[in-house]
């Protein structure tokens, strides 16, 4: 079933065209990769999907609905979650709070019952707490429950950000370079983790990555961008052998050359 459809979208900032005629159809359950050199426009694509930018030309559809002009908080409600390339945690909040905030958008209790701590609200709050602890346990972060998120080691912070995104109960998860700054061991764990949560939470994953091992290892389909346009699309093996891709990616690991 088609989940996400970007229909030849273009993003212009004044005279600069950051993304040109980007098109993709993602079906439920897929794990798609988006790669390309720095500045190719990959994060801009994510920003368009999540409503931070509005595409200059054409539309984006999610589950058949037009989400082109929908603001970020509504996008989350609709079922799309994301992580950020330069990581955006709430550093002054506790680790547990960072996760619990992810559940806020599904809160049924209204403001008054929350302030007055009515029974309906306290029950929901307890559920949120328990669910958040469950998520923390999945990534071995439960012992950091009351630590400030900003104090966590880098790798843990990345995991926390993914957990926070999962708390919003998304159908589509956008991961922007989740393996950045990780060593090979951590990267392997991350790969396993992504596949694990994909099964467990029935997610569709759209992944931006630089690390070739990650992308080639787990993605069934890969898109390659350069200078704002898609230059190749296909299965990992096809991409590896594509001369356009090799040309754009001068720094490609010789294993894949």
């Amino acid at each position, binding site marked *: 079933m088609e989940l996400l459809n970007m229909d030849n979208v273009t993003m212009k*900032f004044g005279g600069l065209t950051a993304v040109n005629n980007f098109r993709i159809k993602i079906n439920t359950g897929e794990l798609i990769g988006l790669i390309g050199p720095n500045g190719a426009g990959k994060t801009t694509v994510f920003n368009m999907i999540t409503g931070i930018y509005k595409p200059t030309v054409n539309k984006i559809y999610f589950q058949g609905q037009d989400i082109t002009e929908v603001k970020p908080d509504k996008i989350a409600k609709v079922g799309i979650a994301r992580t950020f390339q330069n990581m955006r945690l709430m550093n002054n909040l506790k680790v547990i709070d960072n996760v619990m905030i992810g559940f806020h958008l599904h809160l049924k209790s209204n403001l008054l019952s929350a302030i007055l701590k009515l029974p309906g609200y306290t029950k929901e709050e307890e559920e949120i707490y328990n669910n958040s602890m469950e998520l923390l346990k999945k990534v071995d972060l439960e012992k950091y429950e009351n630590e400030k998120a900003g104090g966590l080691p880098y790798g843990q912070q990345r995991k926390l950000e993914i957990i926070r995104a999962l708390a919003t109960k998304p159908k589509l998860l956008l991961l922007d370079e989740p393996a950045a700054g990780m060593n090979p061991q951590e990267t392997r764990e991350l790969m396993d983790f992504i596949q694990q949560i994909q099964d467990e939470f029935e997610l569709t994953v759209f992944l931006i990555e630089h690390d070739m091992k990650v992308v080639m290892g787990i993605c069934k389909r890969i898109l390659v961008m350069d200078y704002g346009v898609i230059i190749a699309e296909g299965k990992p093996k096809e991409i590896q052998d594509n001369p356009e891709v090799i040309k754009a990616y001068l720094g490609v690991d010789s294993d894949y050359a």
Partner: protein
Amino acid sequence: MSLNLLLQNIANGFSLGSLYALIAIGYTMVYGILRLINFAHGEIFMLAPYFLYFGFLMFHLPWWLSVLVAIILTALTGMLTERVAYRPLRDAPRISALISAIGVSFFLQNLAIVLFSGVPKSVHRPEFFRTLFQFGEIRIQSTLIASVIISALFLSILLYIIYKTKTGLAMRAISTDIETSRLMAIDVNKTISITFIIGSALAAIGGILWALRFPQIVPTMGLIPGLKAFIAAVVGGIGNISGAMLGGFILGMAEILFVAFFPELSGYRDAFIFLILILILLFKPDGILGKNVQEKV
């Protein structure tokens, strides 16, 4: 309204505008470099006439020398406030520096009340500044002409400094990216001090011209004009020096004409200016000449 009255008002608007422009430049320069609204700038403006008063009346310096001394002292005070109250907070969240600026503003104001008392003092006006030039039916004070000429003069000098000297280049570099400027061996501290000196000196000139026009000075005289000059800077485009000048004139003109056309609403003249501020912030926050800088996501 008769043509003469209209022209008279326009002349007044120009004059007031030039004073706002002189003060606005200080705000915009500091904001451009430090991203800080220097709330204390209005108090800097206020101190200059007081230095002039004391120099002339107490130390019996010749008037022109008193003016010079007043400008220098004011510029030094400005530089000092940066050293003491802003430099330590350069790496702190911006709000801390803002609160510090408000603190300095109140500190200086109340210090002036303590030292000089709240009783208005009269600044001596030399003969030249009391003359009235007559153009047909329109009377123009010499201070009016003086302020327009002086501000135009100093703006030109300033633009020369900014665009044609190394110091100016350093200022522009810092306002774009302070971290990289440090890496490029630009003496950031020195450049920022120079910025404050120039801005404060211009405010001092504005303050003295203001006192020549309204010779009664009080310690609270800097608050409202300071705020309005800041609004002028925002209207013209905060961070942009030509914008500050433009904004100053626009605001001065707007204020005078508002009272001229709606004399029954004259009690609201300040509210009108604040309204302009809110509208500009909502609809064109980068001001008339400003540029849009987006946050990278």
